[in-house]
C-alpha cells in the first residue's frame, strides 16, 4: 500500500506550470501509480496566482490538496511558494525558482513585496530548495524552459530513474524542443 503523495505546482498564470503537471502525470502513470492532476483554467490564466495539484498512490480519491496536505510545493516564484505555506505538511519541502514577479498590487504601490518570502516559509519549519531556474533555463537555450529546470530539481527528491523522466519529457514535449528541455532538466537536477 503506497500512501497517497501530494504535490502542488504553483506560479503566475502564463509561466508554464501546465506542462510541468502534464509531464509529472505522465511519469507517475508510467510508473504504475493511480494519478490525479487538477488544474483551474480560465480567469486565473491571466497573470494571477495559479495552482495545479498532482496526487499519486495506489488509489487516489480527492483530486485536490487541502490545508496541511502537500508533501512538496514546486514554485515558479518565491512569493507564490510562501502563499501556499498553509497547504504544506509539517516539514514539507518547497522547490522554488528565485525569480521574483511583482503582482499588480505591488506594481501599483498598494502593497509591498515581502523582503524574504522563503525565509517566512523556513520560519514555519518548511524546507526550501531555491534555485535560479531562469538562469539555468537560459543556459539550456530558452527562458521558457524554467519548468523543466524545476522538474529536474524536484526529481532529486524521488527515486524514479533518469530514464523514466526522459521518457516522460519525450512524450510531453514537441520534438523540436526535446533537446533544450532535456538539457534544462539535467541542469536543474545538477548532473
Amino acid at each position, binding site marked *: 500500500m503506497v500512501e497517497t503523495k501530494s504535490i502542488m505546482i504553483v506560479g*503566475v*498564470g*502564463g509561466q508554464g506550470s501546465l506542462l510541468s503537471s502534464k509531464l509529472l*502525470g505522465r511519469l507517475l*502513470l508510467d510508473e504504475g501509480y*493511480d*494519478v*490525479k*492532476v*487538477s*488544474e*483551474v*483554467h*480560465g*480567469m*486565473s*490564466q*491571466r*497573470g*494571477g*496566482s495559479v495552482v495545479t495539484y498532482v496526487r499519486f498512490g495506489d488509489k*487516489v*480519491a*480527492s*483530486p*485536490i490538496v*487541502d*490545508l*496541511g*496536505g502537500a508533501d512538496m510545493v514546486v514554485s515558479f516564484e518565491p*512569493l*507564490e511558494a*510562501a*502563499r501556499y*505555506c*498553509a*497547504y*504544506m*505538511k*509539517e516539514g514539507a519541502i518547497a522547490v522554488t525558482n528565485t525569480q521574483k514577479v*511583482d*503582482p*499588480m*498590487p*505591488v*506594481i*501599483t*504601490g*498598494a*502593497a*509591498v*513585496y*515581502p523582503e524574504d*518570502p522563503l525565509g*517566512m*516559509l523556513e*520560519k*514555519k*519549519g518548511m524546507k526550501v530548495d531555491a534555485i535560479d531556474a531562469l538562469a539555468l533555463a537560459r543556459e539550456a537555450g530558452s*527562458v521558457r524552459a524554467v519548468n523543466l529546470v524545476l522538474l529536474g530539481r524536484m526529481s532529486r527528491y524521488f527515486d524514479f530513474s533518469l530514464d523514466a523522466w526522459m521518457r516522460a519529457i519525450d512524450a510531453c514535449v514537441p520534438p523540436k524542443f526535446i533537446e533544450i528541455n532535456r538539457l534544462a532538466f539535467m541542469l536543474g537536477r545538477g548532473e
Partner: protein
Amino acid sequence: MSGNDAVARGLYEAGCRLVSSYPGTPSTEITESAATYDEIKAEWAPNEKVAMEVAFGASLAGGRSFCGMKHVGLNVAADPLFTLSYTGVNGGMVICVADDPGMHSSQNEQDSRHYARAAKVPMLEPSDSAEALAFTKEAYEISEKFDTPVILRMCTRVSHSRSIVETADRVEKQLVNYEKRPEKYIMMPGYAKRRHPIVEERTRALVAYAETSPLNRWEKGDGKLGVVTSGTSYQYVREALGDSVSILKLGMVHPLPEKLILDFAASVEKLAVVEELDGVIEAHLRSLGLSPIGKDTFSLIGELSANTVAAALGGSVPAHRDLDEALPMRPPVMCAGCPHRGLFYTLAKKKITVMGDIGCYTLGAQPPLSAMDATICMGASVSSLHGFNKIRGEESEGKTVAVIGDSTFMHSGMTGLVNVAYNATNSTVIILDNSITGMTGHQDNPTTGRNLKGEPAAKVDLEALCHALGIARVRVVDPYDLATCDTAITEELAVAEPSVIISRRPCVLLKSVKAKPAVRVNPDKCRACRACMKLGCPAISMKDGRAVIDSTLCTGCTVCTQLCRFDAFEQGEA
C-alpha cells in the same frame, strides 16, 4: 485524461454525430476535444440557446446529439430545455452543464441541479474522468429508453482534473427514422397538455430505474456512519473518512430513488448528506422523513474539501501552519500588450460610467484602471446602458458607455443594440473586437472568419451589422492609439443619436500576432511621476525610483510611450 476530454471520448464512443456548444469555463474543452474526432460534426454556436436548439434538430433528425455549456449558459438555454422535456427526443440527446462551485471563473455559483428538477429531466453526475466517459455513454441509453434529453452535470474539479480512463471503440448508431409527429413535436397548448402527463409518468419510471440502476452505488462500511453523496463530494468523503464509512453514491442526481435511500438510511446509525452548494439531495431525504446531517453543518457557499468533510464527520484533519503576516494578493490582470488596456485607460481618464460585460475585459474593473460600474451577464452591458440612459437622460448619455466583446456581442449583445435603436436612447456602445473569444482560451466565433474545426467560415461584418440593427453612427478605432480613442469617445458621447465604437485590435496572445520590440525606459528622462503606472501593465514596475520595463513581457504596444510627458519611453529596435 481530463474529465472534459473523457466526456468528449464518451460522445465519440457512443456514436454521437453532432456537438453544438458555446464556450464557457469549465466546460469549453469538451467541445474542443470532440472536434478532434472526424466522426463528430462539432460547432461553436453563437450562444447556448442556439446550441441546444441545434442539438434538438439533430436529435429530431435521428442522430445522437450533444450540447455543452457552463452553468450560467443553461440559463440562456433554459427556454428550449423546459419544452424539450415535453417533446422528448428522436436520436439520443445529452446536455452537459458544468458548474463552478467556488467561482474560479464565473459570476455566480448557481446549482444546476435545480434545473433538472424544474424541467423534469434526468441528470447524471460523474465524480472522475472514468465516470465522465461511462456516464456520457449511459446518458444516451437513458435518453433513448425514456425518450428524454439527459443532463450531464460536471463541475470544475471533475472537468479539469485528469485521472485514468479506459477507452473503447466507437459504436456507430443507425439514424433513427424521422417521421412527422405533430402531437409530439409541436408544443402548442392542445398537444402540450397531452405531453405533460407523459412527462410525469416518465419521472415515475425514472425513479423506479434509479432504485436499481448501477449509476447509484451502495458502498458498504461498518454501519456506524452513512453518507449520501455524489460527484466530486464523493471523492472528498472517501479521502476524509476512508473505508469505514458507508456511502450511497448517487450517479443519477435527478430523479432520486426512494426505497434505496430509505434502506440505506435504515442500515446505518448516523446519516449525513455531503453535497456542494444547495441541499438538493438533503431536501429529498427530508421529504422522505429522514433527518440527516446536512446544510446545518456544511456550507451552502463554495467548494467542499476532504478537510471540511473530515472536520464535520469525525475524520482526522491535518495540522497546518499559517504565515505570520498577510502576503500581497496576486489577482489576474490584463496581459501586457492587451488591446483592451488603451481603451479602458481612456475610459478611466475621462471618468466615464461603464456598463461592463463578460470576458477578459471585465478585468478593466480592477485597479488601477477601475473602469467599470456593473457586470451582470452576457449581453447585459448594452441593455442596461439603455435602461440607465432612459432614467437619467442627457446627463448620463453624455458620460456613460457599454463595453462588450466581439463574441459576447454575437451571443446576446445584438438584441440589446436593436432595443437601443428601437426605443431610442442616445447610447454609446463600444464593441471590443479582439478577433477571438479570449477569456475561455481562444475560441473562434462568427466574427473571426473561422469555425471550430479551423476552417474558413462566413465572417460577420460588425459595421454592416450595427448599421442593419438601426445604428447610423459606427466608427472603428485602434485601442493602441490613445488620442484617437479619446476623440472618438468624446464625439460619440456628444452626438444626439445612438452610436457604436468598434475598438479593433487582435488579442496579443494570438499566434498570428507578432510582438514588436520591447519598449525601454531612459532612466535619465524618467521623473518617477508614475503616470505610466495608471495603465496597470504587468510589464511596467518601479525600481529604485524609476520606471522599468520587463522586456520578456513587453510586446511593444507603445501605449505607455503615448502618455509619458517626459518622453522617457523609447521604442526598441527590431
